[in-house]
């Protein structure tokens, strides 16, 4: 990844911090892998992650947000442009270096419409995102405090949504799952998988185990059983 991409990302994060938005966000998606290497320092193996340009911001408690701002207008100065995607028409903020998307948890019956945030944007509703907030880590990068899901949450979330991915994307997901297992082993945190797993709904646990069997991730199955 080029320096200019990172610089733009830091500018965006700094802006979100200045606007008091960053505390309501958890960074989701494959960008987490990039940040893990800073959190675990040299202990973490270098994970070459194949990722698209999307940077996903998960908003775990959207109802608790009171502050009204116009994020698209603020990000326009950095060159971001608004795009509406899919039949639901959820928003993306596009830039040649990366795309920003906001996500919220979908609960109950599927509504097929995005969630309006008071930041002048809407968020895509997705299932199982709750897993990402079960255990989080805080990271300080150049005086910007960001929140990431713990790698064990990130891994179990990836596993549970594995079968929901289109078939041609599954190979990429399987590779990332394998790399995350390697990371947890390297930093001696494989036990954290069970800690998170036990906090997940029993129905979802069953789904996770089935997907792990399909992925042939015996190490993880063993860690969850111990």
């Amino acid at each position: 990844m080029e320096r200019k991409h990172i610089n733009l990302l830091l500018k965006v994060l700094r802006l979100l911090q200045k606007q008091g938005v960053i505390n309501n966000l958890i960074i989701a998606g494959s960008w987490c892998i990039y940040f893990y290497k800073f959190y675990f320092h040299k202990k973490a193996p270098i994970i070459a992650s194949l990722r698209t340009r999307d940077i996903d911001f998960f908003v775990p408690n959207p109802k608790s947000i009171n502050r009204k701002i116009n994020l698209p207008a603020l990000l326009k100065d950095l060159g971001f442009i608004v795009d509406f995607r899919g039949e639901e028409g959820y928003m993306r903020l596009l830039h040649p270096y990366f795309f920003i998307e906001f996500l919220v948890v979908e609960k109950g019956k599927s509504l097929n419409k995005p969630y309006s945030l008071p930041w002048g944007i809407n968020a895509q509703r997705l299932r199982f995102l709750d897993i990402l907030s079960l255990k989080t880590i805080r990271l300080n990068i150049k005086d910007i405090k960001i929140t990431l899901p713990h790698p064990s949450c990130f891994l179990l979330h990836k596993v549970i949504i594995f079968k929901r991915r289109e078939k041609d994307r599954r190979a990429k997901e399987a590779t990332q799952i394998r790399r995350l297992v390697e990371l947890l082993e390297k930093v001696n945190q494989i036990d954290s998988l069970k800690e998170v797993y036990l906090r997940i709904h029993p129905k979802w646990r069953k789904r996770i185990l089935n997907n792990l069997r399909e992925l042939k991730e015996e190490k993880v199955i063993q860690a969850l059983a111990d």
Partner: protein
Amino acid sequence: MEPIRSVLKEELSNSLVLRKKYEKALKKLPKGVLVCKVIKGHKYYYLAKREGSKVKYLYKGKLSKKEIEKFNQAKRMRKKYRKLISEANKQIKFLKKSIKSGKKTH
């Protein structure tokens, strides 16, 4: 090879959307550059616009600071969007080439 190609294809479609969006936004911006002329100590503004091979000067008269800033902002955004379109074009070229060469080796 397949996961890489699927990512490249997704990225290509994203870059094409992005270029289209920037081109649309660029078209929406007011054209021309403000030119200031001082006549007998008073500032009068003209909007310099290119029409084919000619540059035409449209008389705008005295403008408020807010109006001047609006034109300057449009000028800045035009420059920014042109740069971003060029960046998107580079990406599209690279992605098309990568997908094509991937097919050959496959």
